[in-house]
């Protein structure tokens, strides 16, 4: 047997993006306490997002939304075996440092919280823990990746139970990637300028036809059919925030969305799990919103 006393590397891009690869085809659920976290894990969630209030309550309460209490995050870490994510405010690198010190598995630099910096996002290369960031279009996604994000999610419009914005963002990102893939190499410099994104990343997307990191969907998913829709539109996993614990029967809704995510191409399975689920969360028409969270970040 060879003995391999070898140097090992932590926090490499491969290791950080790799955890996102492991979450593919899964459902990441927002939870506000250990009981919710257990329900999520029992239902087959691939990870939980620990936060003090789900987005629909943040929206209702108003005020400044911040990182969660470390104690609450630790209680959730202690009660589940799946990865635990937590949110930091846009640009608030000190909150991110705290979350890294708490050993969370992924940090969401999230527009659901109140931004702490109106110009700069967190320099995510500085961290060993990986980051997920929201995006509404390809340029925004590539800017986040250039700052070190290892996973991109559509922003959608969190806390509304309305999938329309997530669909818009996914379709926009995919259409813009198709445009790059069909462009002549000499056009990519001007396209990079239009997208306000680094040329090297634009060239990479043009060559591969996909983002260099996984693309997940968030913001407004509240039924198994919503999950199937966004996966068919090219999302590789889903974040569900208010959609589970604001529904009539969270346990059943959680299990149903997990199954619909796996079997998104099989409409008869999605139909079966959608049967008699009880009421989904009460939704909101995005045109009537006072605060659009997706406009936070740039």
């Amino acid at each position, binding site marked *: *047997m*060879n*003995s*391999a*006393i*070898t*140097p*090992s*590397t*932590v*926090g*490499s891009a*491969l*290791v*950080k993006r*790799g*955890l996102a*690869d*492991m*979450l*593919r*085809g*899964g459902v990441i659920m927002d939870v506000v306490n250990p009981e919710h976290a257990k329900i999520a*894990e*029992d*239902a*087959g*969630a*691939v*990870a939980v997002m620990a936060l003090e209030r789900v987005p629909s309550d943040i929206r209702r309460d108003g005020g400044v939304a911040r990182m969660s209490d470390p104690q609450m995050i630790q209680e959730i870490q202690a009660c589940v*075996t*799946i*990865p635990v994510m937590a949110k930091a405010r846009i640009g608030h690198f000190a909150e991110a440092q705290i979350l*890294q010190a708490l*050993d*969370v*598995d*992924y940090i969401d630099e999230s527009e659901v919280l109140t931004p702490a910096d109106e110009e700069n996002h967190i320099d995510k290369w500085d961290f*060993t*823990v*990986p980051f997920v960031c929201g995006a509404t279009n390809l340029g925004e996604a590539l800017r986040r990746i250039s700052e070190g994000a290892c996973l991109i999610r559509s922003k959608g419009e969190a806390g509304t139970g309305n999938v329309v914005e997530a669909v818009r963002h996914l379709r926009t990102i995919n259409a813009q990637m198709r445009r790059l893939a069909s462009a002549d190499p000499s056009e990519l410099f001007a396209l990079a300028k239009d997208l306000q994104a680094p040329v090297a990343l634009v060239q990479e997307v043009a060559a591969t036809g996909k983002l260099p990191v996984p693309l997940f969907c968030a913001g407004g998913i509240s039924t198994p059919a919503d999950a199937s829709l966004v996966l068919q539109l090219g999302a590789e996993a889903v974040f569900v925030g208010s959609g589970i614990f604001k529904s009539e029967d969270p346990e059943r809704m959680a*299990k149903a969305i*997990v*199954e619909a*995510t*796996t*079997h998104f191409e*099989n409409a008869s399975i999605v139909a079966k799990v959608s049967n008699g689920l009880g009421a989904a969360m009460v939704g909101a028409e995005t045109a009537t919103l006072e605060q659009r969270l997706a406009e936070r970040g740039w």
Partner: protein
Amino acid sequence: MRQVGVLALQGDVRAHVTTLENLGAAPRKVRQVSDLAGLDGLIIPGGESTTISHLLITSGLRQPLQGLISSGFPVFGTCAGLIMLATDVIDGRVDQWSFGAVDVSVRRNGYGRQIASFESPIVIDGRGTVPGVFIRAPRIERCGPDVSVIATLDHGDGEHPVLVRQGSAWGCSFHPELTSDVLVHGLFLDALQEALR
């Protein structure tokens, strides 16, 4: 060409499919019982073992797969897939179950949480070095007498097996599918070819 399935309930299915394609095998995604027909072997990918085990039950795949695996059907599990194939799982959920095809004890997240996830080269005797990517990886803490240890790693506290085999069942605690190196998958396919001859 051998038809190799990739269990596609959740996890990094795409990376395994790409690796198999690069080796000239014909991968097929397995999501329901009817997808098992005619397969020569199956890969259980990395992902979350709690999620994959839950979906194995809801999809009805658990019993037929258990039958196949118990009768010597070739299987290869990476990371979460190794957990699914082990006989003993430490630090799992109270209702954690597995196929018991490889007589090892694995500790879930045995190398630590994500912040401790690492890359380290792995030496495979006589075959060369492969990149090892360990992500919230399970650690093999005990091997039964019928288990062959193919590669080990010293991560600062003594040698632990990281690639093992018992008969036609293979498991590794790292993710060979996440790099362009195909050596580990090649070993599994060679053994599968040998068994079918």
